[in-house]
């Protein structure tokens, strides 16, 4: 192997792939077969980039040659950049050798579209097939579903991949028309639909015949770029909800637009990446998926955007003070989960703890609950609680004041969004 040439390609094709923020390698349950290599499980972050993102997969493009010219993409045809292409065997070797050294959980392979959607998809599948069949590799494989790829190929892809994804990128159809005029909305939807239907079919069959082969066991995901087309948070979250519901998405990712172009349709070079906004969207996503909120409770026509100063749960609580205060020792779990400053972990601790005794402030503090936020919304076994009739603006002001500036400028788009 010519390592210098590989290094050049790797630099180009990893650099081009990094704007896809998905790093998940969880949700699959592939076991190591006949003393082969690898397995999948909860997904491990083997390291973190200097921008604080999880590195769990070798994330590269097969090639950054592309016949399309999507304005928001570094790989677009009209962009004057170095181009490169990996050979299939090169990707296989890199994956296996990184995996054996415990650098990664597997491969995330995407590509610019060369020749045609089908031609590109075929090559991606060839890599996955080789890994599974020739290398007996049972680690994680995430393949990009190329917009416009045929149903037959999407079917085949799911036989080797753990996860498939099509990035919708632009949350509104009008935005897509503006920035990627030669791409059609249907081209994104079609592979998504095929994958969804196959997943359902395989799950049904598995119920009857246990030995049914796996089809994309980690499901599919998509990504939306945030802040490229002047869309509102409501546009984004309603569209995310649509994908969760209608395409059984495992995850929707939100990626703050990183300026890469002088195109006047887009934010100028050097403008800030909207990282805080991205973080607020992830928090909202969590509220919808794990905390029992529905999207219209948080965003609607009157409130089309999230509050950047405070997290969305606090924002919701301040708009709905009539639900509070909640009695920690009596309230149902679903209501506990709605208290600002209390995450799901704390909800469980409260429920276990209150079986033994009525909980007071001291107990709550020891459980690690963020009382500086929660205290305005709860009562517990103590006569000492915030009984002043404060209005929403005052509470918000007091919470902001008490918040340590040490957290400012440090946002994490992975886990632990609420504590």
């Amino acid at each position: 192997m010519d390592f210098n040439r590989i290094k050049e390609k790797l630099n180009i094709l990893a650099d081009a792939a990094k704007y896809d923020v998905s790093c998940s390698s969880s949700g699959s349950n592939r076991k190591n077969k006949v003393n082969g290599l690898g397995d999948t499980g909860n997904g491990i972050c083997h390291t973190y980039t200097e921008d604080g993102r999880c590195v769990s997969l070798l994330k590269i493009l097969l090639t950054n040659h592309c016949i399309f010219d999507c304005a928001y993409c570094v790989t677009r045809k009209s962009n004057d950049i170095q181009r490169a292409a990996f050979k299939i065997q090169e990707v296989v070797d890199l994956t296996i050798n990184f995996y054996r050294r415990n650098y990664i959980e597997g491969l995330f392979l995407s590509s610019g579209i060369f020749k045609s959607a089908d031609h590109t998809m075929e090559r991606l599948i060839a890599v996955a097939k080789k890994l599974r069949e020739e290398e007996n590799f049972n680690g994680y494989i995430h393949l990009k579903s190329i917009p416009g790829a045929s149903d037959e190929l999407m079917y085949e892809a799911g036989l080797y991949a753990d996860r498939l994804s099509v990035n919708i990128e632009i949350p509104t159809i009008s935005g897509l028309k503006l920035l990627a005029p030669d791409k059609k909305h249907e081209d994104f939807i079609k592979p998504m639909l095929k994958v969804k239907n196959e997943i359902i079919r395989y799950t049904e069959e598995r119920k009857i015949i246990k030995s049914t082969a796996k089809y994309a066991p980690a499901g599919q995901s998509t990504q939306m770029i945030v802040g490229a087309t002047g869309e509102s948070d409501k546009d984004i979250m309603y569209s995310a909800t649509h994908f969760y519901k209608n395409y059984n998405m495992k995850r929707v990712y939100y990626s703050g637009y990183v300026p890469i172009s002088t195109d006047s349709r887009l934010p100028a070079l050097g403008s800030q990446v909207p990282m805080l906004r991205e973080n607020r969207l992830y928090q909202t996503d969590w509220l919808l998926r794990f905390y029992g909120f529905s999207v219209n409770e948080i965003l609607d026509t009157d409130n089309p955007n999230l509050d950047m100063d405070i997290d969305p749960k606090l924002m919701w609580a301040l708009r709905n003070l009539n639900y509070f205060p909640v009695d920690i020792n009596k309230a149902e779990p679903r209501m506990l989960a709605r208290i600002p400053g209390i995450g799901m972990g704390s909800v469980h601790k409260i429920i276990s703890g209150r079986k033994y005794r009525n909980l007071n402030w001291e107990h709550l503090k020891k459980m690690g609950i963020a009382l500086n936020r929660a205290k305005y919304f709860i009562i517990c076994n103590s006569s000492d609680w915030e009984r002043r009739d404060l209005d929403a603006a005052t509470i918000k002001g007091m919470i902001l004041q008490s918040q340590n500036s040490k957290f400012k400028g440090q946002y994490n788009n992975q886990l632990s969004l609420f504590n």
Partner: protein
Amino acid sequence: MNASKTLVYDGSFNGFLTAVFIGFEQKLTHADIQKQGQLQSGLFAETETIFTNIEKAQRVWNGVRNKSNSAIKNIYFAFLSEQNNMEALIYRYIQKLMGSKYNGATDFSDDGVLKINQLAHKVGREKHRMEAFVRFQLTKDEVYFANIEPDFDVLPLISKHFRNRYADQQWIIYDVKRKYGLFYDLNTVEIISLDLSDIHTNSMQKSTAFTDVEYEYQDLWNNYFKSTTIKSRINNKLHVQHVPKRYWKYLSEKKAV
């Protein structure tokens, strides 16, 4: 009746459980259980040497497990923390567990329970970190070799993970701090101790023990790590929080090039 006494065990987990058994048998309300060689008690305390007895250890293990599965895990993890005084904490935890009508392991309003949970949690985190941060280097005799230096004694906890994942390659993970390691020979995992002349960190100096190709792949990985960073989003605080500096010396991607 003896309310307090120092029990000295051999440092093994079974030894410790035997000591717990003896403590319960003698109805000690406070058992000061200490590792041999680290005895710190006062001159006048009464001491008893405990001989590890698998059967007695097993009885404690089963007793706890019947009460609560999460408790048994907490106890083992907390034990591996090697923290000062964790023996006494665990002893009290087991007392509470056995005397409670629920399983006392979930009483998060109790200080001792919280403390054990926190210890177990820290050890659990270290286990995950090691599963993530082990960096194998391929030796000339085709063994994938890694040195680690974990905060807690997590080798017993990570063995299964590596055994399952790397079933078709020989590997060694060696704890430099505790001077023992695991060796998988394509069949079973064995505990080994080595006479290491060098500790293999990510230093720039190449060792003759490893293949040439090994350094090519480290180089590629190092490059990949750099190209996958988005410069306009650099956040070193977050980076260091996820990858604390004390682990850097074994990470090939943190090699200073």
